[in-house]
């Protein structure tokens, strides 16, 4: 695409909102919660002048059900929230997964459980990749690590949601939401409606069968069929959209695994790898569901040890261990509640992990 892209210095929240608009979102339903308030505020400012709809719901429960309605009516629709609000949305998420409907949800994760605090955390990893409400459905989960990626991933999420008829969760955090960085904006343009043959809405008599959006399947086989279709979607997504980036030594002794803001800390550690005296490489997933199992498995046969860094008490590390299947030691450095390890602490842990694995330093 040969369009000129404007480079601006903006916050992650603003980049996310503008990403939504660039991705074709014209309907936004939300409810205030820190640290993502700049997103609904941006939408309230920018959507009505371009013919879009911004509506502040009375709660997150209402917001996600407005999303459910708008999606079933054929719209590219989005909501954003932060951890406690996403927890409230789980009913709606589950209904949408059961009804096989697309939507884009952004979660700027904050400390928890409970009301927690408004500081950085990554403790909604399970909520997003496993537990989007009851039942078997799962959210395709993207993990940006910069303001630019928040913008690009949010914009691209609508396409992915429609392709797999599934919810796409963009998993940010309180730092990515509030920090500012340069960002090249994807131009807004008029977009065709996504053309969902299953959507409800007005149509000429005889034009098509009437559509029913539903997640109630009393018949066992019909209910199972929904789950099988979803599993097929996830298998296709694993083959088609699994994404990650690697950075550092081509012949690493220790592989760092981290996503989102933790990957930024690890990138800092790789830049100072000589201080640890270890050859170091970072593998950072850009998608965590589907998960980059294959590259992690491949590295597990070549490195002496892996170190996972996450701002939760050991959620993401489970997926890494499932990919490694015991081929190499996998250690964990975790902080929670708004605390983050420093780059020096990451490097100290790398030294420790390397020594344990018998790496000559």
């Amino acid at each position, binding site marked *: 695409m040969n369009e000129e892209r404007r480079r601006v210095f903006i916050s992650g929240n603003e980049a996310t909102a503008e990403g939504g608009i660039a991705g074709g979102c014209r309907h936004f339903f939300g409810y*205030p919660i*820190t640290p993502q*308030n700049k997103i609904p505020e941006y939408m*309230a400012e920018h959507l009505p002048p371009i013919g879009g709809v911004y*509506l*502040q719901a*009375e709660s997150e429960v209402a917001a996600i059900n407005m999303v459910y309605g708008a999606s079933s009516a054929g719209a590219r629709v989005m909501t954003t929230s932060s951890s*406690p609000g996403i927890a409230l949305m789980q009913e709606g998420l589950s209904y949408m997964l059961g009804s096989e409907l697309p939507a884009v949800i952004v979660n700027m994760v904050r400390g928890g459980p409970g*009301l927690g605090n408004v500081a950085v955390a990554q403790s909604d990893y399970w909520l997003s990749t496993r537990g989007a409400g009851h039942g078997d459905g799962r959210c395709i989960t993207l993990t940006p690590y910069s303001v630019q990626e928040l913008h690009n991933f949010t914009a691209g999420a609508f396409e992915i949601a429609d392709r797999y008829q599934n919810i796409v969760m963009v998993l940010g955090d309180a730092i990515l939401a509030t920090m500012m960085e340069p960002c090249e904006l994807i131009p807004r343009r008029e977009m065709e409606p996504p053309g969902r043959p299953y959507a409800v809405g007005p149509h000429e008599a005889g034009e098509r069968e009437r559509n029913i959006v539903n997640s109630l399947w009393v018949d066992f086989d019909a209910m199972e069929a929904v789950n099988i279709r979803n599993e097929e979607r996830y298998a296709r997504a694993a083959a088609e959209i699994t994404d990650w980036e690697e950075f550092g030594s081509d012949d690493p002794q220790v592989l760092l695994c981290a996503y989102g803001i933790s990957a930024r800390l690890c990138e800092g550690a790789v830049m100072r790898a000589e201080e640890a005296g270890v050859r170091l490489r970072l593998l950072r997933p850009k998608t965590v569901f589907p998960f980059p199992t294959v590259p992690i498995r491949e590295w597990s046969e070549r490195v002496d040890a892996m170190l996972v860094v996450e701002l939760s008490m050991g959620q993401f590390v489970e997926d890494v261990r499932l990919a490694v299947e015991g081929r190499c030691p996998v250690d964990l450095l975790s902080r929670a509640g708004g605390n983050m390890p420093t780059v020096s602490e990451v490097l100290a842990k790398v030294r420790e992990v390397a020594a344990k694995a018998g790496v000559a330093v």
Partner: protein
Amino acid sequence: MQAAHGRGPAVATGIKRVHPDSVVFTYQGDGDLASIGMAEIVHAASRGENFTVIFINNAVFGMTQGQMAPTTLIGQKTTTSPRGRTAAEAGWPIRICELLDTLEGPAYIAREALTTPPRIRSAKKSIRRAFEAQLAGEGFGIVELLSTCPTWWGMDPLEAIRHIDDTMVEHYPLRVFRDRPAAHDRPAGQQEEAGSDA
């Protein structure tokens, strides 16, 4: 005891049903009580739960940086109604006291304003009365307090007080809506506290 946003009346119900002799109250803002917690407040009031609700109405979500609330006035600019609230987009501001006054459950319902010394004294009196209703086992009491948010209204504190007296009370009239049994028959927002030195 900290409850989730909007769930205060449900949590208070749980506490009061375990400890009926304890004094229980909730302290809720307008976003909390009139938006996400609308179901909880209506049902607690309808059940006539024997606790007291202090309801702070400043017509804005203050803690999350000034978004539109259900009580935001028509035309009022907030961070999520940047061109001013319109009824067409966001509906009309909700009058909680009037709404709860349609229910049989409540014993005491009043709206006061925290603006001038006489009005603040009147508010204290209403709060006292609501707690007395609880102590006497008369049931649910709520006092709505119109209060300022200078930061998100973009006013200095004095302008904000004037804004309540000049504008907000027009939509939210100061009144004792319900006092059962009507022990103290008086209009809100006017009467001096007995024995006051002012």
